[in-house]
């Protein structure tokens, strides 16, 4: 039982994939894989950001991810206004929005000393309101080139999945190889000891809260382009999703330990569970109950296995 924790997330994803195909007797495997990779990519991007924050240690979590996605998507699409050739302007606007949101979150946490849960939840009401105020419920379409890119593929794999994979590699490199990653992992294990060892703990926290918002903003921008426009509720499901993929992926909820491959596997798994239940014809209520049960079961299985080591 010396397998790495991320193996479980990937095994569960494979299991859910086969269970779905079993029902359709193998038909539609390509479509299912495409959908899982696309939707999994959005969950993976926000999950990577959330993982960094959770790694900071107990009490650190960003609950403003959905609002940040919505705000970034809305502002970006409004700026582009369906004009062709504005995709890069849109990215810039989305990322700038992410930076601004991250700064605001961290200022609340740092200067007002609010617990991150309260600070990010309260601030997300403001972000959501700004999103509503800025486009007054209009659904602006993305430029056609951008929409094609967001739904397109490269070597058979959706472009958004490539982006998620690229980000995952960058995050993995940062955590495993960079000095900054070591500082983050040390701060998450024992912030006081880290500070006394000469680590600039506040700078690490600031950078982490900025990263999660930038990741969420990027996911919002891609999701809005993918689904043909920003909607005010487009981020809602990513609140629980971002935390679930971190936990299922094998990162420690107590901080100091993170797991990039696990987040990717868990993101795929989360989407596959939903589509498996769909293809078995489960109603919305049953679907929620079963999804919740499966998440709890996996977390329990993973934690009992770890405590036995």
């Amino acid at each position, binding site marked *: 039982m010396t397998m790495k924790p991320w193996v479980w997330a990937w095994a569960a994803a494979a299991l859910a994939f086969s269970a779905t195909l079993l029902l359709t007797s193998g038909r539609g495997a390509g479509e299912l894989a495409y959908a899982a990779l696309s939707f999994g990519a959005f969950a993976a991007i926000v999950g990577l950001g959330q993982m960094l924050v959770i790694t900071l240690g107990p009490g650190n979590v960003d609950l403003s991810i959905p609002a940040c996605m919505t705000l970034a998507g809305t502002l970006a699409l409004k700026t582009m206004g369906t004009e062709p050739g504005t995709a890069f302007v849109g990215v810039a606007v989305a990322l700038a929005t992410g930076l601004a949101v991250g700064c605001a979150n961290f200022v609340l946490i740092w200067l007002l000393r609010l617990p991150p849960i309260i600070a990010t939840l309260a601030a997300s009401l403001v972000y959501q309101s700004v999103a509503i105020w800025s486009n007054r419920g209009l659904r602006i379409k993305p430029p056609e080139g951008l929409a094609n890119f967001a739904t397109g593929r490269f070597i058979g794999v959706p472009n958004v999945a490539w982006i998620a994979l690229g980000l995952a590699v960058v995050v993995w490199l940062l955590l495993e*190889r*960079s*000095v*900054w990653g*070591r*500082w983050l*992992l*040390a701060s998450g*294990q*024992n912030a*006081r*000891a*880290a*500070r*006394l*060892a*000469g*680590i*600039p*703990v*506040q*700078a690490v926290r600031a950078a982490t809260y900025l990263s999660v918002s930038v990741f969420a903003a990027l996911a919002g921008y891609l999701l809005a382009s993918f689904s043909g426009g920003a909607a005010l509720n487009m981020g809602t499901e990513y609140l629980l999703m971002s935390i679930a993929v971190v936990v299922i992926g094998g990162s*420690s909820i107590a901080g*100091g*330990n993170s797991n990039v491959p696990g987040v990717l596997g868990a993101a795929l798994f989360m989407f596959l569970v939903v589509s498996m239940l769909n293809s078995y014809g489960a109603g919305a209520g049953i679907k929620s109950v079963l999804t919740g049960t499966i998440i709890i079961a996996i977390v329990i299985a993973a934690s009992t296995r770890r405590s036995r080591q």
Partner: protein
Amino acid sequence: MTVLESNPVVALRDAAKHFGPVKALNGVSLSVAPGECLGLVGHNGAGKSTLVNLINGTFAPSSGEVAFPLGQQGVRSVFQELSLCPNLTVAENLSISHPDLRGFGWRRPARAEIQASLDTVFPDHGIDTDAEVDRLTIAERQMVEIAIGFAPRGGTPRLVILDEPTSSLDEGIARQLLSHVRAFCAAGGAVIFISHMLGEIFAVASRIVVLKDGKVVADRPAAAFSRQGLVDAMGHVAAEGTQAAAAQTQIGEVVIRAEGLEARRGEVVGLSGLAGHGQAAALARLYLSQTSDWRAGRGARAVFVAGDRPRDGVLPLWSILRNMSISVLGRDANGGMVDKDAERRLAEDWRKRIGIRTDDLTNPILSLSGGNQQKVLFARALASDADIIVMDDPMRGVDVGTKQDVYAIIRAEAAKGRTFLWYSTETEEVCQCDRVFVFRNNEISAELTGAQITEEKILEASFEMMEAS
């Protein structure tokens, strides 16, 4: 000595404990009789803590047996790593290990019992039984833990194991403990007393057992040992390449003046006084004011060596290697990326210089004994380029041989121009410093230099006000 053979409290027969390939304890036979105080000595990693864990049932022996002819009730341990719940009060901590305190109205008897036990062991302790443990100083926490060990807790303590009980206590409090142990044994109780302070062992033990590399190498009445004989029996674990005693240090200009303290280049400055009179807090403030929350200076001026390892020092999920290198990563980095070769070379170098007992630096830090973890923290600080090294009672739980090595390293580094600020609860250590500040009630009550630094002067400055008031 006839009781000894007849009915021991605990008897180990050829007990061994292996962790994978590591033989922490390698066939130990030992018995402790009522009325006996067994002094247990040995170097860091000799197997003392493992032996304790076999007796109190934390581990089952890999082979051999651990027997309790009089039953297992009343066997208590007081750990070196403090094991109280920090968010509970003193009385609540007692009730955790008290089987009879159940149902309504348990608080009053709990308070009364811990109060009585504290009063017995440490007269005039001044600890509030309703205080939460994390508000207590480390010395007070240790006193509470000892008092819980000796409390009746619905039975009678028959064997109390004290693992480094005095490591964060000052002399006066330690003396109270030693006289309580003597009284406890005279009344028929048994004690296993583990300490690196040989003076204490001789003061309290009726019999001394020496452990080395997981085996008993000597087991004789205390009177049959001389101090030197005991040190020889333990065998010195020499660090490879220890520097020769340094030449007389050249003391230069003042490099830091803060918190009422003043230190010069190349100087070893001691902070003394009774435990918990503001020395640790002053050092922490001084360190934090010299470093930044926001920038990891390439040339950070100060580094910190923690004494309270779990709270201030150890990063528990990591390997020995990563724990050692964390403070110098920024310096040795290549464009923000960790230079793994440099990291490993540095760690190997310090493993040899300071004698950390491990085969593999990628083992978890928590696989090391307490004293060896402390060596890792020393290496972390000394490997940096900082000019000022702040040490918060860093010799807790470190064995005699290692202490000598570390003293030599400190002297050698001071000779190179580094400045040490050193808080210690052991007067003997403070007496080696060039300048000593004595604390009393969170203020500096005396500054001693050169020939003024004597145990009498330090004690005088520590107590003056208390007697007056």
